[in-house]
């Protein structure tokens, strides 16, 4: 097909022809075309089927407000549905397809739904598919979803990459039409850091679509010169193809830049960038959107907005029709007639709803005064219009103008509500704009070119940016508008929301059924809820609702405008946060060693930790874990425990500070000693635990659990700055600085003697349980040694600067060879702490108190510490409160399940009979059967009792015996050995 409707002129590059396909058919266009302008140039008027009734639809607008012409672009994984043909930039090889039809576009089998429309009016599914109820999910909803809809997703991973970024400016100008260009130029010449953003690929806004002159030359040329001036300035950043989609608090704006959507191949670069723009001030110069007038069958391909028709002719050199009638309630519609006629397009009639003389003298066209279009004919494209007086006019395009709505959207993204202006019959920005924002030009209701230029400059002059050069000269073209929202004499269906197929009748029905508030109207009819958010539909629908209720339009109100202004792909919101880089990951210092030695890793927060180290011949993880536990308990095991939080605490008041943040006493801890500490929340619930070592008089190092490392630090800073600001205490995290290894088991001392330099006496007398100190290892490398144990064995933790961590793991294993030392992972660590009865995350779960944990006596009442007052509330120290105890199954072969609840033998499984719950379970290779820790009402007094551990979720029930939580070495002899 050739470009049958290409006419002269336009701002396209005719020297280059590019080929694209639509539904497989090869067509041609030029650089500078949109898909829509190229389709029109090629005579393709039918471009899609409507959402609900599968009505034939064409191109309705020339911008991002397009409700109809949604297409699928590209193939395979890159397929993108619901792209507006009016904003898609044409490129060589573009593959576009129409949406929402079965069979060919010209003969959609689903068009039968249109015949059923009497049954499918607003709210039909609330009524029609009420009964039988069970049919909804199984039959009705899938059938409706199948029948209605938009484009299809590829179902594959998005092959494109996306990015985000942050920009700062003194002034953000949103929109590059006359007002935006003037604002940007004025501020930029005054030295401001300016960002000028426009959703279009060609900057200039409506200047590119009009024949109006600026300073005696074509407006589009003036725009191009101004853009060139701005582009050459180092303090200006031009962001074309960029939609500012949201105005957020304190001058933060969201913007989506489409970097490579106009290219056949992104070349491995981000397809889109989501910018967060920090703007001290902003000028919203987003222009205005034309609105239609509703009349019978006003949705046929060929019925278009008048400003769009003019834009296709002027900017793209395309005739949307060869015989074009104008239907307008305002002066602006006449300019479409004038521009078309100037380009040799026949305009048989201008139908003006107003009973007044023509604002423009246009010989060669007929002026129909006080006229209106009642109906249209033409199955897949407009052939004829019928006026309310019965006369019929053969046309292939009808340009409709119902006036212009200022694009107030971003003014409403915080608290602003638009204000009605009778003289424009439109909403304009109200008060309460986002702080720092001013509105200029058509977006502010200044609909003439001259006014737009004046306002653009004035807006930034008010901010203190001056430009003494004279304002460009431009006319204030006539813009009178007399409201007319729909043609009352039309009997056929008159469409308001073309994308969601909402008609005038639907609005009237909503009124009759009591859905009169705008928010109800919207939800009942789905008006404005499509991807275009009703940019062309909402105001006419509101006006019709106002007519029905007898209220004014401002009394009827508007729905809220929320971000985004136009759709933002989820991929852009995700940015680069995909796959392995969804969030940062942290590696332990011995990660490489672990990887080379059979480790299976587990994610613990952001950390990757070795879970176990499989050896050849082991059938499954249990074999490996059992072996690691047995080796540690009988000889020596080594575990990387770097992930525990380490906080360096210094200051003259450090001891006092620790005494207040831990519930147990720390004031008396001697230098060279370590103490276990339990932290409470202020409400008395146990929060975190760990050990703190006193390295010197005023120097401590605290350890926290891996999970709470960040939040403990935060709380300590809170206590330091907000509660006791005059204590001399200083905190700094050293978690990542020290590679720390647990060396546990009866041979741990023997092993460490081979690694720790000889000047440190490791004998039990010189370095007893809970000792700590600075040592050197491997001939002088500084290290810290702590004699602490999580496993219950004689154990140490040795820390070296992290850079030596990987080597240290190898050294410890090498030194441990003679003892058959093994590395162990988090599973064995967990098994051993359960065997020893140590509480961990499953027990410190935000519900349990020290009393529940069996550590109630640790909570000192002789000092002020966080949580001690509220920990003594009667409810928290009840005699019958749950207490941490151990459990073993009566049948040694039985398994235990964490989360199971305890019931007395014979008691029914009800909440009233609930006695507590199992928090941690493991298979104990030391004991040869399952063991568990759990919370049981009055647990400490119930040793030996037999209960049922019931898990309704798993459908299991196991008889268990209540035992001490210290399954291994209850007297702690091994620790101190």
């Amino acid at each position, binding site marked *: 097909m050739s470009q049958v409707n290409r006419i002269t002129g336009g701002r396209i590059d005719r020297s280059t022809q590019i080929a694209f396909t639509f539904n497989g058919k090869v067509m041609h266009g030029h650089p500078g075309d949109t898909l829509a302008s190229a389709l029109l140039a090629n005579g393709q008027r039918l471009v899609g089927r409507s959402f609900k009734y599968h009505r034939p639809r064409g191109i309705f607008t020339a911008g991002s407000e397009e409700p109809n012409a949604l297409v699928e672009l590209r193939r395979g994984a890159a397929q993108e549905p619901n792209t507006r043909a009016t904003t898609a930039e044409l490129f060589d090889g573009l593959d576009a397809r129409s949406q929402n039809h079965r069979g060919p576009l010209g003969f959609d089998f689903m068009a039968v739904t249109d015949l059923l429309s009497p049954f499918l009016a607003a709210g039909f599914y609330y009524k029609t598919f009420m009964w039988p109820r069970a049919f909804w999910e199984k039959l009705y909803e899938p059938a409706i979803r199948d029948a209605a809809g938009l484009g299809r997703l590829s179902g594959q991973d998005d092959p494109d*990459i996306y990015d*985000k*970024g*942050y*920009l*700062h400016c003194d002034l953000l100008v949103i929109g590059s039409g006359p007002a935006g260009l003037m604002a940007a130029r004025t501020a930029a010449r005054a030295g401001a*850091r300016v960002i000028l953003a426009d959703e279009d690929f060609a900057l200039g806004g409506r200047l590119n679509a009009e024949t109006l002159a600026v300073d005696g030359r074509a407006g589009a040329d003036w725009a191009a010169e101004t853009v060139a001036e701005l582009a050459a300035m180092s303090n200006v950043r031009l962001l074309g193809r960029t939609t500012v989609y949201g105005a957020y608090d304190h001058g933060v704006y969201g913007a989506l830049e489409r970097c490579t959507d106009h290219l056949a191949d992104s070349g*491995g*670069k*981000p397809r889109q*960038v989501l910018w*967060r723009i*920090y703007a001290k001030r902003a000028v919203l110069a987003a222009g205005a959107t034309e609105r239609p007038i509703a009349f019978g069958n006003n949705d046929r391909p060929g019925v278009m907005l008048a400003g769009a028709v003019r834009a296709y002719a002027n900017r793209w050199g395309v005739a949307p029709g060869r015989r074009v009638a104008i239907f307008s309630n305002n002066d602006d519609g006449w300019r479409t007639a004038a521009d078309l006629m100037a380009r040799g397009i026949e305009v048989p009639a201008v139908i003006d709803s107003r009973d007044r003389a023509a604002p423009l003298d246009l010989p060669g066209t007929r002026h129909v005064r006080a006229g209106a279009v009642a109906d249209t004919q033409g199955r897949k494209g407009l052939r004829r219009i019928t006026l309310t007086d019965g006369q019929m006019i053969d046309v292939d395009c009808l340009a409709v103008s119902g006036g212009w709505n200022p694009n107030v959207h971003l003014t409403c993204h915080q608290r602003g509500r638009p204000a009605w202006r009778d003289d424009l019959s439109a909403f304009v920005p109200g008060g309460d704009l986002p702080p720092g924002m001013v509105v200029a030009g058509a977006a502010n209701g200044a609909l003439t070119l001259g006014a737009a230029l004046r306002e653009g400059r004035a807006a930034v002059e008010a901010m203190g940016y001056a430009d003494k050069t004279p304002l460009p000269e431009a006319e204030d073209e006539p813009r009178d508008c007399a409201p007319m929202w729909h043609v009352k004499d039309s009997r056929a269906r008159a469409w308001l929301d073309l994308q969601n197929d909402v008609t005038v009748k639907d609005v009237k029905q909503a009124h009759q059924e009591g859905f009169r508030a705008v928010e109800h109207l919207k939800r009942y009819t789905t008006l404005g809820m499509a991807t275009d958010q009703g940019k062309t539909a909402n105001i006419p629908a509101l006006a019709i609702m106002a007519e029905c209720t007898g209220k004014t339009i401002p009394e009827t109100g508007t729905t809220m405008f929320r971000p985004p202004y136009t759709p933002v792909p989820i991929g852009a919101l995700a940015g*680069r946060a995909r796959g392995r*880089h969804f*969030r*940062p*990951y*942290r*590696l*332990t210092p011995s990660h*490489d060693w672990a990887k080379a030695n059979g480790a299976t890793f587990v994610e613990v927060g*952001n*950390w990757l930790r070795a879970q176990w180290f499989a050896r050849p011949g082991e059938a499954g993880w249990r074999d490996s874990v059992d072996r690691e536990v047995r080796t540690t308990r009988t000889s020596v095991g080594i575990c990387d425990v*770097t992930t525990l939080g380490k906080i*360096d605490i*210094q*200051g003259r008041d450090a001891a006092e500070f620790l005494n207040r943040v831990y519930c147990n006493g720390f004031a008396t801890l001697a230098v060279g000693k370590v103490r276990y500490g339990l932290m409470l929340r202020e409400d008395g619930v146990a929060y975190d635990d760990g050990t703190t070592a006193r390295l010197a008089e*005023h*120097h401590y190092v605290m350890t926290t659990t891996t999970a709470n490392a960040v939040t403990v630090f935060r709380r300590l800073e809170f206590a330091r700055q907000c509660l006791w600001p005059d*204590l*001399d*205490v*200083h905190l*700094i*995290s*050293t*978690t*990542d*600085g*020290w590679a720390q290894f647990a060396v546990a088991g009866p041979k741990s001392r023997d092993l460490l003697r*081979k*690694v720790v*330099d*000889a000047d440190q006496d490791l004998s039990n007398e010189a370095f007893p349980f809970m000792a700590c100190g600075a040592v050197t290892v*491997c*001939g002088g*490398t*500084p290290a810290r040694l702590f004699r602490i144990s999580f496993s219950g064995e004689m154990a140490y933790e040795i820390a*070296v*600067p*992290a*850079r*030596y*961590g*990987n*080597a240290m793991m190898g*050294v410890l294993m*090498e*030194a441990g060879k003679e003892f058959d030392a093994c590395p162990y992972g988090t599973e064995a660590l967990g098994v051993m702490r359960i065997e020893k009865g140590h509480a961990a995350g499953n027990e410190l779960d935000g519900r349990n108190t020290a009393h529940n944990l069996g550590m109630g006596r640790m909570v000192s009442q002789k000092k002020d510490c966080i949580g001690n007052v509220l920990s003594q509330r009667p409810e928290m120290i009840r005699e019958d409160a749950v207490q941490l105890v151990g459990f073993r199954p009566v049948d040694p072969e039985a398994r235990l399940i964490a989360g199971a609840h305890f019931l007395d033998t014979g008691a029914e499984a009800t909440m009233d009979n609930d006695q507590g719950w199992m928090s941690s379970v493991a298979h104990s290779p030391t004991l040869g059967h399952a063991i568990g820790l759990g919370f049981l009402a009055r647990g400490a007094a119930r040793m030996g009792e037999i209960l049922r551990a019931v898990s309704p979720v798993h459908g299991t029930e196991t008889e268990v015996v209540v035992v001490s939580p210290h399954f291994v070495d209850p007297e702690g002899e091994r620790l101190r050995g």
Partner: protein
Amino acid sequence: MADFTLTSWPPLAGTDMTLAGVRLWAPTDLAVVSLALPLGREDAAMAAIKAAHGTALPEIGKSVVTADGVRLIRLAPDLAFAVFTHATPDAERVVAERLGGAVYTTEQTDVWVALGLSGPDARRALERICMLDLHSDAFAVDDAARTVMEHLGVLILRTGADDYLLLSASSSAMSFLHALETSLRNIA
């Protein structure tokens, strides 16, 4: 005894690449020591720092390079970092000895990894991950700030017109490198 030797293995050692005309590299042997000023004895602490380095602690958000090549970075009223080239794992001791106990010092060398970024488009790459305004009017040479990039805490320093030094936690070094490398690739 001492049959074993420990080899140093910093996470990003050897990183040096040029992308988009920007050099991305990991400086070797960069030591970091934190300096906390004792409450109520700040003047003595500041005097000790000045005596030791010949230069006073700069204002918050600024850094200064002393005659002996130590970059002193003031991060908060009572906190500064000393960053300097020092290969052995005793940077804290070296700094502490010069300050004679007037300042609380903590070894931070292995807590951090550093990446340098040099080239005319360095700022354009950082725009993709750094929410701070790095325009020279807002972030001049020797300015320093702690912020977040790609969920990672980062200390960013401007060391020259087109030169930056960034420090982030050593455990997440691979994510840190990925963040910067991706930023460069995306603007290349």
